[in-house]
């Protein structure tokens, strides 16, 4: 699946895969201060576990943010395990290598709890993330 590249000031609108996506792009409202910069958003699925990891990896690789700022919405995450969190660490590394940093628009309590318990909250930039209740809680 090839994701659509964001153009001009238009917000990224990444195509949803035909199969059940574990992750998809969602328009993320930008704050006025950040308006000039290109931004692309991803909303994590409710389940980010080893079982979903292969799909998750495929989707993350398929999505190309280009030079846009990477915004993640983790508000829907209900289940996450070490494999899921490690995937996010690898994703963060992928963009930090390009000089980009991941930002969270929201993180569910489950996502925060898991990342803190594994000592990964800082690496994922989740300590600064605004909390957002997952639908399951």
């Amino acid at each position, binding site marked *: 699946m090839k994701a659509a590249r964001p153009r001009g000031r238009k917000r990224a609108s990444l195509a949803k895969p035909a199969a059940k996506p574990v992750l998809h792009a969602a328009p993320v409202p930008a704050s006025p201060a950040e308006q000039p910069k290109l931004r692309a958003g991803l909303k994590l699925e409710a*389940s980010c*576990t*080893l*079982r*979903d*990891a*292969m799909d*998750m*990896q495929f989707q*993350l*690789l398929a999505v190309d943010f280009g030079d846009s700022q990477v915004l993640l919405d983790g508000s829907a995450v*209900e*289940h*996450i*395990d*070490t*494999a*899921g*969190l*490690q*995937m996010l*660490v*690898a*994703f963060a*590394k*992928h963009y930090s*290598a390009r000089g980009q940093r991941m930002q969270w628009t929201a993180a569910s309590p489950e996502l925060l709890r*898991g990342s*803190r*318990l*594994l*000592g*990964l*909250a*800082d*690496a994922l930039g989740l300590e600064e993330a605004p909390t957002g209740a997952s639908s399951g809680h």
Partner: protein
Amino acid sequence: MRWAWKKRRPGPAVGIELEQFHEVFFEEASEALDAMENSLLKLGPGAADSETINTVFRAAHSIKGGAGMFGFNDIAGFTHTLETLLDELRAGRMLVTAPLCDGLLQSVDQIRSMLGALQKSQVFDTTAAEALRSGFERLIAEQKSAGQKKAPGAASAAAPKTAAAAMPAVAPASNDSERRCWKIGFRALPELLNRGNDPLRMFAELRGLGELTVRADCTAVPELAALDPACCGITWQLELLTDAPRSSIELIFEWAEGDCELVVEPQKPERAQQPVAIALPEIEQEAPTGTLSAVRASQGAGGDGNSIRVAIEKIDELLNTVGEIVITQSMLTQLSRRFDGVHGDSLRSGLAQLEMNIRELQESVMRVRMLPVGSVFSRFPRLVRDLSSRLGKKIRLQISGEQTELDKTVLEKIGDPLVHLVRNSVDHGIESTQARLDAGKQEEGTIHLNAYHKGGAINIVISDDGGGLNRQRILEKARSRGLVDATAVLSEEQINDLIFLPGFSTATQTTDLSGRGVGMDVVRRNIKDLGGNVELKSELGQGTTITITLPLTLAIVDGQTISVGTETYIVPLVTVVESLQLQPGAVSHIYDHGEVFSFRGEYLPVIRLHEVFGVRPLSESLYDGLMMIVEGDGRRAGLFIDELLGQQQVVIKSMETNYARIEGVGGATILGEGTVALILDVPGLLRMTPAAQRRTGT
């Protein structure tokens, strides 16, 4: 309440198909239950030590962890309550009482039943488990409310019944002076996540023990494209401030044993008191104080890091192949005799070496199948405890020789006969307390289970110091049932033998423990099916000793090769007493007993093997051929044969599997020259003598 057990899919927190590990869980849970039961049997008022309670706790915890991981929530919930109760015992806040021990043992039964039902996807009635669980919860709640009102030292006063059963005090959890800081190094090995072990769950459990600080090192996590999601590249350094012992920490990682590198070491107290913050994940890690390679380094020799589980079918396949090699080698050896000269000698020398190597290989494979008989004996302490308490008897069970090894198949099949014999000893053997006191015996009866090697066989002995067999009553019963002629005079041994007849029971009162028709005849038949023998000795008022002789293995036998006419037969060497040539006139013909001859003051029946198998012998005269004295079931007879050919170890091929069961034939084998030879079942042949048939009324 009845629930249909379903093997549920694991919860979403677990990422992969875990069904493939269910069998491993069932096996390990079963082992944990055995360990739990054995420890609980040692536990009792006045005999409670913290190590025993810890062992029980560890077993319960291990089951809980596994059950939780696989989504078997009912077992996990039940063991969770059990674990809470055990934790109270462990901390010395509750005391061990006899009813509590009974309850704990019942909980083992419940978990076992739950696992059994789960394994077979059967419906399980949880009423008893729920009742037990409620009882435990009530006990815990009562203890907690009592603990709030009283000082810890006054606990025993709150339970007068338990005053004598005070356990050695274990430091209460609230004792801050016992708090230590543990430094834990954890690195996942490639299979960790794939086996359903999630560090997230483990760390959550760790946090339950105290204050936890986690530092993750993600430098080894590869780029997204190169990442294997199931391979965890993060390593952790954790600090845990807790009052829990090291064993509690290690217990959390128990299921990950072999799939992680773990170091748990105490930190210096001053370091422990330092406030610690969550460290940045990607900072340079300080060098670990010890190598991480020692997986559960502190664990003793009991750890099985060097062992693997192998399906028994694989071993059997290997054994079968080795058996075929033995036959092929034997054929080659015979062929080699046709070669002369230097080359022939070299060939034979090489084949001799090959034979030696194959023999070693065969023994090695056989050893893999050997298990200590203790695995069967281990069920008896519980059995004797439960039965004796139900019957109001005081019985001590002594077990020895539990390290004696026996073939796995033999071991599996000997369990039920042994249970029957031990039950008989408890129910009929050991007298009631009053009867023992009246007879001037000790109040407490003793049952002794022993196993040892003897020759090429294993002897298992069940002896008791009970009332012994009442031969008079046995004889009367046998006569009343028409099993024995009213005028027949029987030796003590023959009377003892009567109890092995089908349907024979002298129990005046049929209890639910014994006397239900599954009698000693079934026991003997089962043991005979294994190629074994049962012998019984009993003294009235002194006790009974039953000796079971079993072959080390069912796969090979040391045999004496004999010939009758053109046929070759194998006689198991253990049954052969000696061979002789009879002097003319040594054989007499006795009515109802057929042909007999005198052998060392005893008249032995003659079995003409050519008649049994319908072959033409070299000579039909008993004075021309050889008389082989054989023994089985405590009886002897003379086998009339043509010649002795030699001794050799043969691989047994089952007749039953390949053809049908034949009385007098224990199996078959393939000889070196490629022909098939029957292996004689001597006890079966002895049952064919006229005297034996008259005894059994057939």
